[in-house]
């Protein structure tokens, strides 16, 4: 019995297979998301500019953004199958799309572009206050819409999702730690002559994310759209639950941009936390002494760069400590391989930070939804007390730390304690910084 045959295959459940093969999947979710998305954009660009009362702001930043890491953990990139931008791309390609292949530049540097967009959006959020400004959030969504329209008109498949979506890098990295994987059965794929999973079958498009089942070995790009389930004539596709983070230690070709992004996300989690703390003003004053200016943009940019450089520098330094002095090339290799081990802590940090917003501002979603019907509700926005939230945050960080430490152990091929000590210490340090930040009072989004 082969290894793949031993794993649980959710598609063996007739109702799941039938549903994924039907047009209802993912259409049902996509159209619902599209409807909600339209309402959100309308409210953001035309509704009140008070973020506390804007339906779009609360739906986007209090509900969606905290839920997204949870979705990646449990369902991989299922969100990308539902995403209104993905559906919009599908519609436009049918109506006005080109079959021109994705340009070489995007193929080669796409992930770096995603990294740059993600950093740029986070930076601009702090400079122009996009999250707290309904108009700003609305324009950001419209800008993304334009990028989707342009790439869908000009290039084949979901070029935007694969190479430009700012969420794509985050989604890819988090989905590697996810608990669900879609794969082909190697024994069946090896004998396949049609390759319909990649080419499509005339009725259903081939994989929109340019994946080929025979060589696919990561969940980073699979958005679980179900096209391969619909087109595969040999029933080779398997949908399997797995141990969280297990993909991280099985990566055959680790890439610098992924490790870089993993470290950057940790830096961004620090920035998100620090700028919402009451000590932020003091930090800004300290930076102003060095920079010689009180300009917020300048001082924030310095803090932003330092926060991102901290985990990158620490990861590089750890790689240096662990490398054998006779092998200088080993440092970069260590940076790239062990960079993936930060992902569980990234996920935990992101989740813990947003847990604060979801649980202390969660009722805003309800109040503002009711507000759409003309009913005005006022009161506390909290769903849980700050103490409960704090303990939950610590718990999430501890789980992330366990995931990261175990990933180090497995990536290091179950190496000795002494060999892997610098990485363990690095992960503990990141967890302590996160926990310390969660002990400090934080301000709200809405």
């Amino acid at each position, binding site marked *: 019995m082969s290894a793949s045959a031993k794993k649980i295959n959710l598609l063996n459940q007739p109702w799941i297979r039938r549903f994924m093969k039907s047009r209802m999947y993912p259409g049902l979710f996509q159209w619902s998301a599209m409807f909600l998305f339209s309402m959100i954009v309308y409210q953001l660009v*035309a509704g009140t500019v008070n973020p506390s009362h804007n339906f779009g702001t609360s739906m986007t930043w209090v509900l969606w953004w905290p839920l997204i890491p949870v979705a990646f953990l449990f369902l991989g990139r299922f969100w990308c199958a539902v995403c209104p931008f993905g559906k919009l791309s599908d519609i436009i390609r049918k109506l*006005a799309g080109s079959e021109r292949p994705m340009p070489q530049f995007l193929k080669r540097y796409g992930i770096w572009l995603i990294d740059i967009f993600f950093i740029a959006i986070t930076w601009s959020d702090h400079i122009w206050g996009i999250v*707290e400004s309904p108009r700003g959030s609305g324009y950001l969504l419209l800008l993304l819409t334009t990028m989707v329209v342009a790439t869908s008109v000009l290039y084949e498949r979901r070029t935007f999702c694969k190479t430009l979506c700012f969420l794509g890098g985050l989604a890819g990295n988090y989905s590697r730690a996810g608990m669900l994987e879609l794969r082909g059965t190697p024994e069946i794929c090896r004998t396949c002559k049609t390759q319909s999973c990649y080419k499509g079958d005339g009725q259903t498009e081939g994989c929109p994310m340019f994946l080929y089942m025979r060589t696919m070995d990561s969940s980073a790009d699979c958005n679980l759209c179900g096209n391969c389930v619909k087109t595969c004539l040999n029933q080779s596709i398997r949908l399997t639950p797995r141990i969280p983070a297990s993909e991280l230690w099985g990566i055959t070709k680790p890439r610098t941009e992924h490790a870089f992004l993993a470290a950057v996300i940790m830096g961004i989690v620090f920035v998100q936390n620090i*700028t919402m703390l009451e000590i*932020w003003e003091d930090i800004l004053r300290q930076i102003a002494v060095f920079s010689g200016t009180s300009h917020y943009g300048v001082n924030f940019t310095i803090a932003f760069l330092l926060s991102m450089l901290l985990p990158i520098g620490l990861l590089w330094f750890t790689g240096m400590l662990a490398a054998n002095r006779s092998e200088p090339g080993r440092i970069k290799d260590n940076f790239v391989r062990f960079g993936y081990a930060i992902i569980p802590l990234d996920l935990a940090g992101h989740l813990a930070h947003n847990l604060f917003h979801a649980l202390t501002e969660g009722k805003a979603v309800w109040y503002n939804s009711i507000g759409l019907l003309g009913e005005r509700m006022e009161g506390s926005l909290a769903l849980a007390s700050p103490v409960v939230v704090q303990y939950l945050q610590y718990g999430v960080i501890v789980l992330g730390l366990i995931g990261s430490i175990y990933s180090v152990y497995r990536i290091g091929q179950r190496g000795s304690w002494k060999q892997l000590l610098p990485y363990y210490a690095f992960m503990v340090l990141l967890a302590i910084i996160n926990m310390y930040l969660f002990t400090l009072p934080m301000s709200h989004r809405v």
Partner: protein
Amino acid sequence: MLNSSIAKRMMGMRRASWMIVIASFLIVSGTAWADENKHGEHTTKATSSQSVPVKEVGTGGHRHGGDVEESPVNTKVIGAFAAVNAAFLIYGVFRKYGAKREGRLS
């Protein structure tokens, strides 16, 4: 001979499509601009210049606190977005239609 004539036609079509893209952009954004200037004020859900107090929640960079002044829909921005998107769509439809007519696309 046949190839060069097809290539010429394609080149012409490409030029025409870009002209359509630019023209639509100018027309739609021009309309949005004119609309903005003509009306001056816009009918929106939000009441212009109405101050709404927002709870003070720290003084972080992420949140500056203070009063929020309601502002109307910025038709200029929305118009520009609509124009650019419409331009891309028109360009795409035109090119797809052309490709279908020449039998390059099923």
